[in-house]
């Protein structure tokens, strides 16, 4: 009976230590687990993939540092997908704090593609292949304004160039020239894009959200308002799986690398539950 008593009184810090080890080890020796892609992410992949040549993909980077672990890998995967398919990309944020993270994701992926490109045609060039529009407050102005003219809303882009001088902006005038908009956010922006932009201009909307706020968004996916949905780090890993499988993109899969530690963490928590209950039942029977 001694083990049971000891089990019942494991010190809290040992539990923390076990969790820490179980999470850190798979991070130091990364391995990528095969991921089964569920329908919501598959639909989003095909929606991004089917953006016509002459149209653009807009990515709305609206995650804060605190929700970056779940949403940043989605941003990287979407950018790699679009640039590999040479889809035209516009990037924007609805809030000022998010600009820094959008800029960080953009520069890293561009560098990844341009370091490998030989000729001018297959490298990613600002103004021709993508434009970083930046931020115009309050959010309702870009959401509705881009329906008629994007250059009227964003007269100047993030870097300060006049947008009407950029070649890409001559082709992409408004939502008619936008195949799909994907909003990455931990709060309400995806709802706004449906309520305002989709209702009035028929804009196709996809979303990448945090796991905690997932249940609310499933109803919009069910009604078809969302053309696809990624939820949490697992959703990001599924998208990384799709771009590797369909487009043979061999870049670092941050979210997929997080799956092993995530799996072991879940297993450890489940084992703790079982042990905790065994010692609990033993004690109850003893009484």
């Amino acid at each position, binding site marked *: 009976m001694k083990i049971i008593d000891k089990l019942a009184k494991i010190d*809290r810090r040992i539990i923390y230590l076990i969790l820490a080890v179980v999470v850190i080890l798979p991070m130091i020796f990364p391995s990528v687990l095969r991921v089964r892609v569920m329908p919501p992410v598959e639909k989003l992949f095909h929606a991004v993939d089917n953006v016509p040549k002459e149209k653009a993909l807009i990515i709305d980077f609206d995650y804060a540092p605190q929700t970056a672990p779940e949403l940043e890998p989605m941003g990287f995967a979407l950018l790699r997908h679009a640039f590999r398919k040479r889809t035209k990309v516009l990037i924007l944020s609805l809030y000022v704090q998010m600009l820094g993270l959008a800029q960080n994701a953009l520069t890293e992926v561009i560098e990844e593609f341009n370091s490998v490109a030989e000729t001018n045609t297959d490298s990613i060039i600002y103004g021709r292949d993508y434009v970083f529009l930046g931020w115009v407050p309050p959010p309702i102005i870009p959401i509705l304004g881009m*329906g008629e003219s994007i250059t009227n809303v964003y007269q100047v882009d993030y870097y300060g160039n006049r947008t009407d001088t950029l070649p890409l902006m001559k082709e992409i005038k408004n*939502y*008619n020239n936008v195949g799909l908009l994907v909003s990455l956010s931990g709060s309400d922006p995806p709802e706004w894009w449906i309520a305002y932009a989709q209702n*009035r*201009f*028929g804009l196709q909307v996809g979303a990448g959200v945090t796991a905690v706020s997932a249940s609310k968004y499933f109803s919009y996916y069910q009604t078809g308002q969302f053309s696809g949905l990624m939820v949490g780090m697992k959703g990001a890993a599924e998208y990384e799986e799709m771009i590797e499988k369909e487009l043979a993109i061999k870049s670092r899969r941050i979210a997929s690398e997080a799956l092993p530690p995530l799996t072991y963490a879940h297993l450890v928590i489940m084992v703790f539950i079982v042990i905790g209950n065994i010692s609990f039942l033993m004690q109850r029977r003893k009484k």
Partner: protein
Amino acid sequence: MTLILLAGLFALAPPTGVRAYDTPDDGGGAIIIEWQISQDDQILDGYEIYRSDNGIDFEKVGFIGKGRTTIEDETNDGVKYLYKVAAISDTIRAYSEPSAEVMSYPQWINRNKINIFVAFFIFGGIILYFIYHARKGKELFIRKIAGLQAIDDAVGRATEMGKPILYVPGIGYIDYIATIASLNILGEVAKKCAEYETKLINPHIDPIVYTVAREVVKESYTKVGRPDAFDPDSVYFITDLQFAYAAAVDGIMVREKPATNFLVGWFRAESLILAETGASAGAIQIAGTDQVSQLPFFVTACDYTLIGEELYAASAYINRDPLLLGAIKGQDWGKLIIGAILLAASVIGIITKFPILNLFR
């Protein structure tokens, strides 16, 4: 011949049946324009909306993507307007016939919101009916909620052990109903602390809730006849940030080692930090919140949890105040009505073709 052919080739079919009317149920300043899409809709860029207030010169006021058949235009009230819609493909345009004259004006009632106010008057009426009877002293039966018995035992436990009671009112603002219910329960717990001279610790995150709580606790001490025992610093403000507050309260749980923790009110992600640290410090914990996302953590880590509405019933039970009990009875009737509506609407929804869902926009 070729010219006509070319013209025929390039001339677009204009949109037809253009109709314009004042947007109903709004504050004025808006007119809705509707039309049938042109036969060449597939190759169009979209439709341009033209407006004139003298019937002669039209100026462009709007644009919308192809395949759409309606748009809302912002106007000045009391001015007569005429509208034309043009199908546009690159630089070629085809104008429709002008619409009839139309004027926009504000309405005083938004008919879409009537169902909300009907529900409010019915439900409000029931609540007031029961409160009226409660004031008349009518006996109103309310079943016993397990969590409430625990509040008395928990305060008793802290008194026996001579240890303080920690009352965490959640991180909600003063207007959150959970916060107000929590202040009600704080009032009762403070009365018991005054009677048994148990130390009360009541840290706050919101300056307004803090000021109200101070008054509530002071009033409770005077009600029990112990205004002198009230320690003004037992109720204090820490910070207005969620996690600084959680860290500070954790610090209190570990340092002051209260025998009983009350975690009652509006909570977010910090609820698990508080509940877990309290559990590991070995305190009896009573939780209560209407934040459904936090209930799983409270249910697992606390001894008693008031789930959602039980929190409101708790403040009524503690005060044994007929007015509050009257409200609870009214809410029970509200649930009966919701159940009846669900049953009736489902029967109508299945058997008949009536679009029952539109009644509940």
